[in-house]
């Protein structure tokens, strides 16, 4: 059960996030060890930030902290209406 030795790439992370979370679109940057992912997905709607980030971490399981040394995440739920940059005040 050895993880593949190949270094992770931003492209790989992007594809896996988009495949793992329905409807997600991701922008990933990184150097093979430290990555930054900006992820937008309808599935985030109504979830707390922690729950949103967990969905992203769950795509990679035990690789985060290991093969993927660090993964910084910003999540956004795509606006349901026209308001582009609204900040929902409460999530209940």
């Amino acid at each position: 059960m050895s993880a593949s030795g190949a270094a992770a790439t931003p492209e790989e992370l992007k594809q896996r996030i988009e495949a793992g979370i329905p409807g997600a679109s991701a922008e990933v940057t990184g150097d093979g060890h430290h990555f930054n992912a900006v992820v937008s997905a309808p599935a985030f709607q109504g979830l707390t930030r922690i729950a949103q980030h967990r969905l992203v971490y769950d795509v990679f399981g035990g690789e985060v902290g290991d093969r993927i040394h660090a993964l910084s995440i910003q999540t956004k739920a795509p606006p349901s209406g026209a308001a582009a940059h609204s900040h929902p005040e409460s999530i209940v």
Partner: protein
Amino acid sequence: MSDQTTNTLREQIQTAIDENPVILFMKGTPEQPMCGFSARTVAILQSVGRPFAAVNILPDPRIRQELSGVSNWPTIPQLFIDGDFVGGCDIVTEMYESGELQQALGLESAPAEAAPAPQASEPAPLTIENRL
């Protein structure tokens, strides 16, 4: 390998979370963070001026393992307030910028643009003891 040791360590972590209103599990210490994400989180906590307990997870890899079992969160640092897992560096940063962190810490007035001189609050160093 022994379940006994594992359980004890997890209990110690849970006790530390329960007993410290604000506790940060990090790489290194507030005085000497060993990772940029831990350093950033410490800087934020210090700038809001709320004392916090800190646990260095580096001395024993099992601390991190057990901690992640408690929080269901894979990365370090991890901040807990009043026993609740709050998030890691990204979330703490977002919450700081929106003022939510200050609210969660019971500091209603968020130091917004004024950026007062960061006060070095007294961090309470804390050691999770491993009885190997």
